[in-house]
């Protein structure tokens, strides 16, 4: 029974981490622009995050050390500090976007003013983090986010051309708008492999007290959790390709995403979509908030952990409270959460190598890992993804400028 509950860690990481506002935005926009042509990129991203989350979960289980410990040790203080600053900026942008997303969904459900709902959302998240035990946070947001499965039903009910859908899983280059296609490919990879996911995942593994006995559980968590996240991404993209592309709709609003379930399934589809988005984005907000606090605490050697009382880890507690406060200021400035999401994803892509190189180095270090060191397959995949990550990191900002954020 305990094992089943532990799998919830993977489900939370998948729904709240994999399917966050970045995935919602990029998958739906990519589907509306290119139909099913970019489905293969989601597969590449999902396999990438499975490879690296498995690696960092294994490192955490064997060495009891989360990712940011490895970053500081392997990259040195100076570069490590650079990685910390970059990751904190991206974390804050993502957190602010997620909070804005929560407020927008609450507004679509209640009709109350957006700014009031930002305050309600922030307060709700703070209370959830403060009051609820870690495993309850996992269950509430993880299982609530499963309502997003409504998009899978919606995708089927929209009767897409399944031949075109299957063709989309074969890697290819679009015949039109190659730069915009590349921009969305980079965005989808960035959204799938966003660094906070592995920070949260590995810190969660340390918090849960994983040991080498849990390595099988780690594999199941990363594969089932992120695999499920990838399935939801497919559903979102297929829905957008079947519904929005033929009508020339360019989704720029969270509410537009929900239309993908409302049109085929009616009011119940709409309600489930909004609830699913609310929990997925809310869960991702908590992941991001924790990730930011974890990184700071691990880098500076503070006491950290959700399992400790706030008085047992005061600087960690202050860190997540401060992050929530800063996110509140950012989103109250009036910035569009969807636009902020696009910036956050693209900037996170630039920081990807700083996160993933140290994981690969530590997972290969026999003095840390003993007999649990990377095998040939893990190394081959790890190296392949480092090359991919390097290429997308170099091309992300130029593509964003050249395509005017995918507008063409």
């Amino acid at each position, binding site marked *: 029974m305990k094992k089943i509950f532990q799998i919830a860690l993977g489900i939370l990481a998948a729904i709240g981490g994999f399917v966050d506002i970045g995935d919602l935005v990029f998958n739906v926009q990519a589907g509306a622009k290119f139909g099913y042509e970019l489905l293969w990129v989601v597969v590449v991203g999902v396999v990438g995050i499975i490879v690296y989350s498995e690696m960092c979960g294994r490192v955490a289980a064997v060495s009891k050390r989360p990712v940011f410990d490895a970053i500081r040790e392997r990259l040195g203080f100076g570069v490590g500090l650079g990685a910390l600053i970059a990751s904190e900026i991206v974390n804050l942008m993502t957190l602010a976007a997620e909070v804005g997303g929560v407020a927008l969904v609450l507004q*679509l459900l209640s*009709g109350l003013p957006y700014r009031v709902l930002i305050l309600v959302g922030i307060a709700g998240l703070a209370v959830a983090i403060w009051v609820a035990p870690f495993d309850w946070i996992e269950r509430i947001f993880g299982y609530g986010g499963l309502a997003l499965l409504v998009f899978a039903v919606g995708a089927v009910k929209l009767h897409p051309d399944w031949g075109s859908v299957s063709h989309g899983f074969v890697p290819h280059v679009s015949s039109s708008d190659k730069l915009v296609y590349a921009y969305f490919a980079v965005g989808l990879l960035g959204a799938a492999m966003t660094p906070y996911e592995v920070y949260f995942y590995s810190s969660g593994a340390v918090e849960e007290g994983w040991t080498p006995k849990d390595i099988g559980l780690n594999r199941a968590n990363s594969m089932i959790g992120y695999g499920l996240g990838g399935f939801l991404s497919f559903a979102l993209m297929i829905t957008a390709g079947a519904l929005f592309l033929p009508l020339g709709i360019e989704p720029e609003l969270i509410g537009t995403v929900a239309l993908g379930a409302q049109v085929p399934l009616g009011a119940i589809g*709409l309600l489930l979509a909004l609830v699913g988005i609310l929990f997925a984005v809310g869960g991702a907000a908590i992941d991001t908030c924790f990730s930011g606090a974890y990184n700071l605490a691990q880098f500076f050697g503070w006491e950290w952990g959700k399992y400790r009382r706030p008085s047992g880890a005061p600087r960690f507690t202050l860190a997540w409270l401060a992050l929530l406060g800063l996110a509140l200021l950012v989103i109250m400035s009036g910035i569009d959460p969807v636009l902020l999401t696009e910036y956050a994803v693209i900037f996170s892509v630039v920081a990807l190598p700083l996160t993933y190189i140290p994981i690969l180095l530590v997972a290969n270090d026999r003095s840390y890992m003993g007999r649990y060191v990377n095998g040939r397959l893990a190394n081959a995949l790890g190296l392949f993804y480092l090359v991919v990550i390097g290429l997308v990191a170099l091309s992300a900002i130029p593509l964003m400028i050249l395509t005017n954020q995918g507008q063409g």
Partner: protein
Amino acid sequence: MPPRAWICLVLLVLPTAACGGGGTLSTKAFQRQAESLQSLAAEGGLVAQGRADGRATGTFVSVQTEYLAKAAGKVETELGAAHASGGLEQKRKSALRLASRVTAELGELHRAPDERALAERLASDLRDAADAAEKLAK
């Protein structure tokens, strides 16, 4: 890359990526505006039809159309502030009228989301507007 270079890059990128139109309208910029208008009208049509069929909540329709109306109003403002030459100027004026109509219709739906007959009429009007915008974009 040193941190100072990153800051410069960010300061350079954000305004460049965010800047919009205004001034003389190029064919490409006009096409973008017409495509945006098509998108907003088509989405408005979907939302309105959902309400007319009783398949979407009034709250959702009211909130979503408020955002769509704001976006259509932005297109209207940008088209109104720009000028073009030759045949493009004629298209700009047509698009401006269309943007004004779409903004007004989305606003109507925002204010009266519970009137199903109105939603039915607006759904049809907005679909027509989307078709017209698509033709202008070509």
